């Protein structure tokens, strides 16, 4: 009997050369005729808003461009949006820009009073205005997930996922190596866990694409430092496409997080971060998640249904077919360990490669055993 699977991704992802030129057509499909763009100072300094204006040339789409200078701008943005009659929102940036765009969308569609409701997870079932997400950096998947944090309150709804994500090398800004590493490792951990433990073929397809994107780009980006001076503009340009691919992987990890909010690596990574809060510079969230992932795979080698198949997106067809089936789970874990080892050589101050090396004691690991062990659900094939 065919099993019932559920996976929702309401975001249309446009990736690649001239992806921005598709935006006016996609917006017209959502009856959006006057978009309101929220961006930050870094994107404006890099003249990324001009890329957007170029994409809207010859299309009758006027743009309202608000440059976020502080987190306290929401009231101003709300009045601008309503008074000037905008009908859709574009977030040109990452992190704070996207969270503000989602909060603005909530304030407009549900009323500003909704943002003052008591803390806690808010289930919002009504549709929101069209939201377009154009990243300028690879992030950790929060931007495309169906949740937003605003003034300490967490709002959850699939409607909070962007309607369109446009990811292109033209809008990528220079990103520090630490942020690249954090984004890549975080996406890798989320996608690997979804691939190895989910029975949904849709989730595994998304996860497989995310893993391939990370494996293709993370190592070259880590080996190539981020240059800011003008003499290295060519090197900077060469980084833009891998950065866009990493941003794509992060977007995919956001879709997965929306469908699987209780991923073990996320929870275990947060626990490790809390335990080692005295070492924030040494341990990023992404690294903690990958260390937890390796431990999770080690503990669940015999119960994990798809661990052997994980070798295929982690490497390539030749490597996958060259390893006998019973050895594939071990090989998949070895590949992840090897990646961490090679990445550690590119980081000047080094990088822990196990939870023990990160300073987590065996007793603390055993306390986290529920998060580091996979238990098959009842009736799972």
């Amino acid at each position, binding site marked *: 009997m065919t099993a019932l699977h559920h996976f929702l991704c309401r975001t249309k992802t446009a990736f690649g050369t001239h992806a921005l*030129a598709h935006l006016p057509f996609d917006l017209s499909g959502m009856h959006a005729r006057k978009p309101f763009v929220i961006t930050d100072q870094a994107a*404006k300094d890099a003249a990324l808003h001009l890329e957007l204006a170029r994409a809207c040339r010859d299309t009758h789409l006027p743009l309202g*461009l608000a440059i976020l200078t*502080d*987190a306290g701008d929401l009231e101003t943005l709300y009045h601008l949006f309503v008074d000037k009659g905008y009908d859709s929102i574009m977030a040109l940036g990452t992190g704070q820009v996207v969270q503000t765009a989602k909060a603005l969308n909530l304030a407009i569609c549900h009323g500003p009073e909704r943002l003052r409701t008591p803390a806690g997870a808010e289930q919002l079932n009504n549709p929101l205005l069209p939201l377009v997400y154009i990243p300028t950096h690879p992030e950790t998947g929060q931007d495309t997930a169906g949740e937003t944090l605003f003034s300490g309150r967490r709002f959850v709804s699939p409607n909070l996922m962007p309607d369109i994500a446009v990811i292109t090398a033209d809008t990528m800004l220079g990103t520090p190596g630490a942020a690249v590493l954090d984004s890549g490792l975080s996406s890798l951990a989320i996608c690997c866990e979804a691939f190895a433990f989910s029975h949904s073929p849709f989730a595994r397809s998304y996860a497989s694409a995310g893993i391939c994107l990370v494996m293709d780009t993370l190592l070259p980006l880590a080996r190539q430092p981020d240059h800011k001076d003008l003499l290295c503009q060519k090197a900077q340009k060469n980084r833009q496409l891998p950065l866009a691919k990493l941003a794509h992987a992060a977007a995919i990890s956001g879709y997965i997080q929306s469908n699987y909010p209780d991923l073990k690596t996320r929870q275990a990574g947060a626990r490790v971060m809390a335990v080692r809060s005295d070492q924030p510079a040494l341990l990023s969230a992404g690294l903690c998640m990958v260390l937890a992932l390796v431990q999770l795979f080690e503990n669940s080698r015999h119960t994990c249904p798809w661990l052997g198949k994980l070798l295929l997106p982690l490497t390539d067809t030749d490597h996958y077919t060259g390893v006998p089936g019973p050895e594939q789970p071990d090989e998949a874990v070895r590949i992840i360990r090897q990646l961490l080892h090679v990445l550690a050589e590119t980081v000047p101050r080094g990088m822990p490669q196990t939870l023990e090396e990160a300073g987590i004691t065996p007793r603390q690991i055993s306390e986290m055993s529920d998060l580091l062990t996979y238990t098959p659900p009842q009736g799972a094939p």
Partner: protein
Amino acid sequence: MGTDGFHIHITGGKNAMTDFMEIPPARHYWKRWYLSCMLWFFGRAVQAAARVDDGVRSEFAAMPDNFTFCLGAFPAGPCMVVGKDAGGRVRHLGSAIADRTIHLHLMFKHPALLFRVFAFRESTPVANARNRLYVRGDVPRACAVVRIMDMVQVFLLPKFLAKRAVKRYPAWSLKRRTLDRAQVYVRAFAGF
């Protein structure tokens, strides 16, 4: 929903200023002029090829009479309209799509994407694979129109450009490559 009653400082009392600017939609006049010229000449070449070449003629023969199709860019053109009248003659009907029944729309999603095709930086199959155009109408007829476009491009362009514009450069007979091509050029310029 009005703005009355929105007197809360949502983020806790910060009163920062937001820079705001409005960017009106601009037009790229040079590109529009180039595309209009190319589409005008291409439409006349389709009309000429339908009279000269057996391959183009047979594709049009399979279409119903009074069938009209347009090729252009979303949302405001430029466009090229070609139709087959009740007598089976193929005619270039200009660029206006308003007040006209169009049975098949082949539209690129942005003028810049149409420009890439007519600047021979991207072939029609590659543009299609990259989701650059949409079709409103019968898909089999759209495939026939794409085959006609390919043949006309091979007639009009030198080999090194035509190779970039079509998926596979065809092995045509010498007559088709020389005499028919010359006739298509003359008829396209003369407009008959």
